[in-house]
Protein backbone atom coordinates (compact mmCIF):
# COMPACT_ATOMS: atom_id res chain seq x y z
CA UNK A 1 0.00 0.00 0.00
CA UNK A 2 1.38 3.44 -0.91
CA UNK A 3 2.57 5.82 1.83
CA UNK A 4 -0.18 7.77 3.57
CA UNK A 5 -2.82 5.23 2.55
CA UNK A 6 -4.69 3.11 5.05
CA UNK A 7 -7.56 0.67 4.94
CA UNK A 8 -11.05 1.54 6.08
CA UNK A 9 -13.10 -0.88 8.16
CA UNK A 10 -10.18 -2.85 9.54
CA UNK A 11 -11.68 -5.33 12.05
CA UNK A 12 -10.77 -4.94 15.69
CA UNK A 13 -10.72 -7.68 18.33
CA UNK A 14 -14.00 -8.30 20.09
CA UNK A 15 -14.90 -10.07 23.31
CA UNK A 16 -17.58 -12.51 22.20
CA UNK A 17 -19.24 -15.30 24.11
CA UNK A 18 -20.77 -17.78 21.70
CA UNK A 19 -23.48 -20.35 22.36
CA UNK A 20 -24.64 -23.37 20.46
CA UNK A 21 -23.68 -23.45 16.82
CA UNK A 22 -21.26 -20.59 17.33
CA UNK A 23 -24.09 -18.04 17.70
CA UNK A 24 -22.85 -14.90 19.55
CA UNK A 25 -24.65 -14.41 22.88
CA UNK A 26 -22.75 -11.35 24.04
CA UNK A 27 -20.47 -8.93 22.19
CA UNK A 28 -18.20 -6.81 24.35
CA UNK A 29 -20.50 -7.62 27.30
CA UNK A 30 -23.62 -6.47 25.45
CA UNK A 31 -26.30 -9.14 25.23
CA UNK A 32 -27.29 -10.18 21.72
CA UNK A 33 -31.07 -10.17 21.33
CA UNK A 34 -31.29 -11.20 17.69
CA UNK A 35 -29.23 -12.47 14.80
CA UNK A 36 -30.09 -10.76 11.54
CA UNK A 37 -27.83 -12.72 9.26
CA UNK A 38 -24.93 -15.13 9.21
CA UNK A 39 -22.60 -16.03 6.36
CA UNK A 40 -19.33 -17.74 5.61
CA UNK A 41 -16.40 -16.18 3.74
CA UNK A 42 -13.64 -18.38 2.46
CA UNK A 43 -10.82 -16.88 0.45
CA UNK A 44 -7.14 -17.38 -0.34
CA UNK A 45 -7.59 -21.08 0.38
CA UNK A 46 -4.95 -21.76 -2.24
CA UNK A 47 -2.30 -19.77 -0.26
CA UNK A 48 -0.39 -20.24 2.97
CA UNK A 49 -2.63 -17.66 4.59
CA UNK A 50 -6.17 -18.82 3.91
CA UNK A 51 -9.04 -16.64 5.06
CA UNK A 52 -12.04 -18.39 6.65
CA UNK A 53 -14.55 -16.33 8.57
CA UNK A 54 -18.01 -16.97 9.95
CA UNK A 55 -19.80 -13.61 9.98
CA UNK A 56 -22.74 -12.65 12.19
CA UNK A 57 -24.82 -9.53 11.98
CA UNK A 58 -26.44 -9.12 15.37
CA UNK A 59 -28.52 -6.62 17.32
CA UNK A 60 -27.57 -6.09 20.95
CA UNK A 61 -29.91 -5.30 23.83
CA UNK A 62 -28.97 -1.62 23.68
CA UNK A 63 -30.09 -1.48 20.04
CA UNK A 64 -26.76 -1.57 18.27
CA UNK A 65 -26.40 -3.36 14.95
CA UNK A 66 -23.01 -5.08 14.93
CA UNK A 67 -21.08 -7.21 12.45
CA UNK A 68 -18.75 -9.68 14.12
CA UNK A 69 -16.86 -12.67 12.78
CA UNK A 70 -14.90 -15.61 14.04
CA UNK A 71 -11.61 -16.51 12.40
CA UNK A 72 -12.12 -20.20 11.78
CA UNK A 73 -8.38 -20.76 11.50
CA UNK A 74 -7.55 -19.65 15.03
CA UNK A 75 -10.91 -19.10 16.72
CA UNK A 76 -10.44 -15.38 17.47
CA UNK A 77 -13.39 -12.94 17.32
CA UNK A 78 -13.42 -9.55 15.63
CA UNK A 79 -15.97 -6.85 14.92
CA UNK A 80 -16.31 -4.42 12.06
CA UNK A 81 -18.74 -1.95 13.60
Amino acid sequence: MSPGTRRIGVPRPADVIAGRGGRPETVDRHEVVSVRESWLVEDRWWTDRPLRRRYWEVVTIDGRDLVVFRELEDGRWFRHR
Partner: protein
Amino acid sequence: MARADELHADPVALLRFRADTAELPEALDRLGVRTLGELAALPRAALADRFGPSGLLAHDLVHGRDTPLRPRRPGELLEESLELEESASGEQLGRALELLVDRLLARRERDGRTLRAVVLGATLVEGGTWRERVVFREPLADPARMRLVLAQRLAQLPAPAEALRLAVERFGPPHHGGRALFDDGTAQRRARLREAIRQVRAVAGPEGALRVLAVDPDSRVPERRAVLAPFEL
Protein backbone atom coordinates in the same frame (compact mmCIF):
# COMPACT_ATOMS: atom_id res chain seq x y z
CA MET B 1 -1.20 55.44 -51.91
CA ALA B 2 1.88 57.62 -52.27
CA ARG B 3 5.28 56.38 -51.19
CA ALA B 4 6.88 58.21 -48.27
CA ASP B 5 9.66 59.78 -50.38
CA GLU B 6 7.12 61.08 -52.89
CA LEU B 7 5.58 63.16 -50.12
CA HIS B 8 8.80 64.85 -49.07
CA ALA B 9 8.05 68.04 -51.00
CA ASP B 10 4.53 68.30 -49.54
CA PRO B 11 3.85 70.80 -46.76
CA VAL B 12 3.69 69.76 -43.11
CA ALA B 13 0.17 71.25 -43.13
CA LEU B 14 -0.98 67.81 -44.32
CA LEU B 15 -0.55 66.63 -40.77
CA ARG B 16 -3.69 68.61 -39.94
CA PHE B 17 -5.75 65.83 -41.58
CA ARG B 18 -4.88 63.53 -38.74
CA ALA B 19 -6.42 64.40 -35.37
CA ASP B 20 -3.38 63.15 -33.44
CA THR B 21 -0.98 65.37 -35.40
CA ALA B 22 -3.28 68.32 -36.17
CA GLU B 23 -1.53 70.60 -33.69
CA LEU B 24 1.95 70.05 -35.12
CA PRO B 25 2.04 72.08 -38.40
CA GLU B 26 1.84 75.43 -36.61
CA ALA B 27 4.69 74.61 -34.23
CA LEU B 28 6.77 73.06 -36.99
CA ASP B 29 6.25 76.11 -39.13
CA ARG B 30 7.54 78.33 -36.30
CA LEU B 31 10.63 76.13 -36.16
CA GLY B 32 11.14 76.52 -39.87
CA VAL B 33 10.15 72.98 -40.76
CA ARG B 34 7.93 73.42 -43.77
CA THR B 35 7.93 70.17 -45.73
CA LEU B 36 7.43 66.55 -44.81
CA GLY B 37 10.92 65.86 -46.13
CA GLU B 38 12.43 68.33 -43.68
CA LEU B 39 10.41 66.71 -40.93
CA ALA B 40 11.62 63.25 -41.98
CA ALA B 41 15.21 64.45 -41.69
CA LEU B 42 14.81 65.38 -38.04
CA PRO B 43 16.00 62.86 -35.43
CA ARG B 44 13.20 60.75 -33.99
CA ALA B 45 14.39 61.35 -30.44
CA ALA B 46 14.31 65.12 -30.93
CA LEU B 47 10.69 64.97 -32.16
CA ALA B 48 9.74 62.75 -29.23
CA ASP B 49 11.40 65.18 -26.85
CA ARG B 50 9.70 68.24 -28.30
CA PHE B 51 6.25 66.90 -29.23
CA GLY B 52 5.78 63.64 -27.33
CA PRO B 53 3.60 60.86 -28.87
CA SER B 54 2.27 63.10 -31.63
CA GLY B 55 5.84 63.88 -32.70
CA LEU B 56 6.64 60.16 -32.85
CA LEU B 57 3.51 59.51 -34.87
CA ALA B 58 4.40 62.31 -37.31
CA HIS B 59 7.89 60.85 -37.69
CA ASP B 60 6.42 57.42 -38.43
CA LEU B 61 3.96 58.85 -40.93
CA VAL B 62 6.57 60.74 -42.93
CA HIS B 63 8.61 57.54 -43.10
CA GLY B 64 5.63 55.66 -44.44
CA ARG B 65 4.71 53.86 -41.26
CA ASP B 66 1.06 54.17 -40.36
CA THR B 67 -1.14 52.46 -37.80
CA PRO B 68 -2.86 49.37 -39.23
CA LEU B 69 -6.18 49.88 -40.89
CA ARG B 70 -9.17 48.88 -38.84
CA PRO B 71 -11.83 47.38 -41.06
CA ARG B 72 -15.39 48.33 -40.36
CA ARG B 73 -17.43 45.34 -39.33
CA PRO B 74 -20.38 44.87 -41.64
CA GLY B 75 -23.72 45.07 -39.90
CA GLU B 76 -25.07 41.73 -38.84
CA LEU B 77 -28.63 40.86 -39.61
CA LEU B 78 -29.95 38.19 -37.35
CA GLU B 79 -33.64 37.77 -37.81
CA GLU B 80 -36.26 35.10 -37.34
CA SER B 81 -39.74 35.27 -38.74
CA LEU B 82 -42.82 33.17 -38.56
CA GLU B 83 -45.80 33.05 -40.87
CA LEU B 84 -48.94 32.60 -38.83
CA GLU B 85 -51.41 30.22 -40.35
CA GLU B 86 -54.41 32.25 -39.39
CA SER B 87 -54.75 35.75 -38.09
CA ALA B 88 -53.21 35.33 -34.71
CA SER B 89 -53.73 37.20 -31.51
CA GLY B 90 -53.60 36.56 -27.79
CA GLU B 91 -52.31 33.16 -26.75
CA GLN B 92 -51.36 32.11 -30.30
CA LEU B 93 -49.16 35.16 -30.60
CA GLY B 94 -47.58 34.30 -27.27
CA ARG B 95 -46.65 30.84 -28.54
CA ALA B 96 -45.30 32.29 -31.78
CA LEU B 97 -43.19 34.74 -29.79
CA GLU B 98 -41.85 31.89 -27.66
CA LEU B 99 -40.79 30.05 -30.78
CA LEU B 100 -39.17 33.12 -32.33
CA VAL B 101 -37.17 33.87 -29.19
CA ASP B 102 -35.96 30.28 -28.97
CA ARG B 103 -34.99 30.21 -32.63
CA LEU B 104 -33.19 33.54 -32.44
CA LEU B 105 -31.21 32.49 -29.38
CA ALA B 106 -30.34 29.19 -31.02
CA ARG B 107 -28.76 30.86 -34.07
CA ARG B 108 -25.12 29.92 -34.37
CA GLU B 109 -24.15 33.43 -35.44
CA ARG B 110 -25.11 34.66 -31.96
CA ASP B 111 -21.94 32.96 -30.77
CA GLY B 112 -22.76 33.08 -27.07
CA ARG B 113 -23.48 36.82 -27.08
CA THR B 114 -26.30 38.41 -25.16
CA LEU B 115 -28.90 40.57 -26.84
CA ARG B 116 -29.03 44.24 -25.92
CA ALA B 117 -31.72 45.48 -28.32
CA VAL B 118 -34.16 43.73 -30.62
CA VAL B 119 -36.82 44.76 -33.07
CA LEU B 120 -40.17 43.06 -32.89
CA GLY B 121 -42.26 43.38 -36.00
CA ALA B 122 -45.50 42.07 -37.45
CA THR B 123 -47.37 42.06 -40.72
CA LEU B 124 -50.97 42.83 -39.97
CA VAL B 125 -53.89 40.98 -41.49
CA GLU B 126 -55.63 44.22 -42.35
CA GLY B 127 -52.57 45.38 -44.21
CA GLY B 128 -49.60 47.37 -43.04
CA THR B 129 -46.88 46.53 -40.63
CA TRP B 130 -46.09 47.14 -37.00
CA ARG B 131 -42.65 47.55 -35.48
CA GLU B 132 -41.33 48.01 -31.95
CA ARG B 133 -37.75 48.53 -30.92
CA VAL B 134 -37.04 46.99 -27.52
CA VAL B 135 -33.90 47.78 -25.55
CA PHE B 136 -33.46 45.42 -22.65
CA ARG B 137 -32.57 46.88 -19.31
CA GLU B 138 -29.54 44.61 -19.28
CA PRO B 139 -28.13 42.33 -21.98
CA LEU B 140 -30.08 39.08 -22.02
CA ALA B 141 -29.67 35.53 -23.18
CA ASP B 142 -32.43 34.10 -21.04
CA PRO B 143 -35.44 33.22 -23.21
CA ALA B 144 -37.91 33.45 -20.32
CA ARG B 145 -36.90 37.01 -19.46
CA MET B 146 -36.88 38.04 -23.08
CA ARG B 147 -40.37 36.65 -23.59
CA LEU B 148 -41.60 38.48 -20.53
CA VAL B 149 -40.44 41.82 -21.90
CA LEU B 150 -41.50 41.17 -25.49
CA ALA B 151 -44.92 39.85 -24.59
CA GLN B 152 -45.78 43.22 -23.03
CA ARG B 153 -44.89 44.95 -26.29
CA LEU B 154 -46.74 42.39 -28.34
CA ALA B 155 -49.87 43.13 -26.35
CA GLN B 156 -49.84 46.57 -27.99
CA LEU B 157 -50.26 45.05 -31.43
CA PRO B 158 -53.10 47.09 -33.02
CA ALA B 159 -54.61 44.25 -35.09
CA PRO B 160 -54.26 40.49 -35.67
CA ALA B 161 -51.01 39.53 -37.36
CA GLU B 162 -50.25 37.14 -40.18
CA ALA B 163 -46.48 37.19 -39.67
CA LEU B 164 -44.21 37.94 -36.77
CA ARG B 165 -40.53 38.91 -36.92
CA LEU B 166 -37.84 39.26 -34.32
CA ALA B 167 -34.46 40.71 -35.21
CA VAL B 168 -31.36 41.53 -33.22
CA GLU B 169 -30.53 45.18 -33.37
CA ARG B 170 -27.58 45.19 -31.02
CA PHE B 171 -25.62 42.50 -29.25
CA GLY B 172 -24.32 42.64 -25.70
CA PRO B 173 -21.27 41.01 -24.15
CA PRO B 174 -20.92 37.23 -24.09
CA HIS B 175 -23.25 35.44 -21.74
CA HIS B 176 -21.48 33.97 -18.70
CA GLY B 177 -23.62 30.84 -18.76
CA GLY B 178 -22.93 30.32 -22.44
CA ARG B 179 -19.23 30.76 -21.99
CA ALA B 180 -19.21 28.09 -19.29
CA LEU B 181 -19.20 25.41 -21.97
CA PHE B 182 -15.67 26.38 -22.92
CA ASP B 183 -14.35 28.27 -19.94
CA ASP B 184 -15.95 26.92 -16.81
CA GLY B 185 -13.34 28.19 -14.38
CA THR B 186 -12.03 24.69 -13.69
CA ALA B 187 -8.46 25.85 -13.33
CA GLN B 188 -9.47 28.55 -10.90
CA ARG B 189 -11.54 26.14 -8.80
CA ARG B 190 -8.71 23.62 -8.71
CA ALA B 191 -6.27 26.26 -7.57
CA ARG B 192 -8.64 27.32 -4.80
CA LEU B 193 -9.20 23.72 -3.74
CA ARG B 194 -5.46 23.08 -3.73
CA GLU B 195 -4.93 26.09 -1.51
CA ALA B 196 -7.75 24.99 0.82
CA ILE B 197 -6.16 21.54 1.16
CA ARG B 198 -2.82 23.11 1.91
CA GLN B 199 -4.37 25.20 4.68
CA VAL B 200 -6.25 22.24 6.17
CA ARG B 201 -3.04 20.20 6.28
CA ALA B 202 -1.17 23.09 7.85
CA VAL B 203 -3.71 23.10 10.69
CA ALA B 204 -4.68 19.42 11.03
CA GLY B 205 -1.58 17.64 9.81
CA PRO B 206 -0.98 15.44 6.76
CA GLU B 207 -4.13 13.41 7.42
CA GLY B 208 -6.31 16.49 7.43
CA ALA B 209 -7.38 15.95 3.83
CA LEU B 210 -7.99 12.37 2.72
CA ARG B 211 -10.26 10.77 0.20
CA VAL B 212 -12.03 7.43 0.21
CA LEU B 213 -10.71 5.35 -2.64
CA ALA B 214 -12.76 2.32 -3.65
CA VAL B 215 -10.27 -0.48 -4.20
CA ASP B 216 -12.47 -3.55 -4.42
CA PRO B 217 -15.98 -2.31 -3.65
CA ASP B 218 -17.64 -5.69 -4.16
CA SER B 219 -15.26 -7.65 -2.00
CA ARG B 220 -16.85 -9.99 0.55
CA VAL B 221 -14.11 -8.97 2.96
CA PRO B 222 -15.11 -5.51 4.21
CA GLU B 223 -11.62 -4.15 4.93
CA ARG B 224 -10.61 -4.75 1.31
CA ARG B 225 -13.32 -2.56 -0.17
CA ALA B 226 -11.86 0.92 0.33
CA VAL B 227 -8.85 2.78 1.57
CA LEU B 228 -8.24 6.29 2.80
CA ALA B 229 -5.67 8.03 0.63
CA PRO B 230 -4.18 11.53 0.66
CA PHE B 231 -6.34 13.95 -1.29
CA GLU B 232 -4.30 14.96 -4.32
CA LEU B 233 -5.26 17.20 -7.21
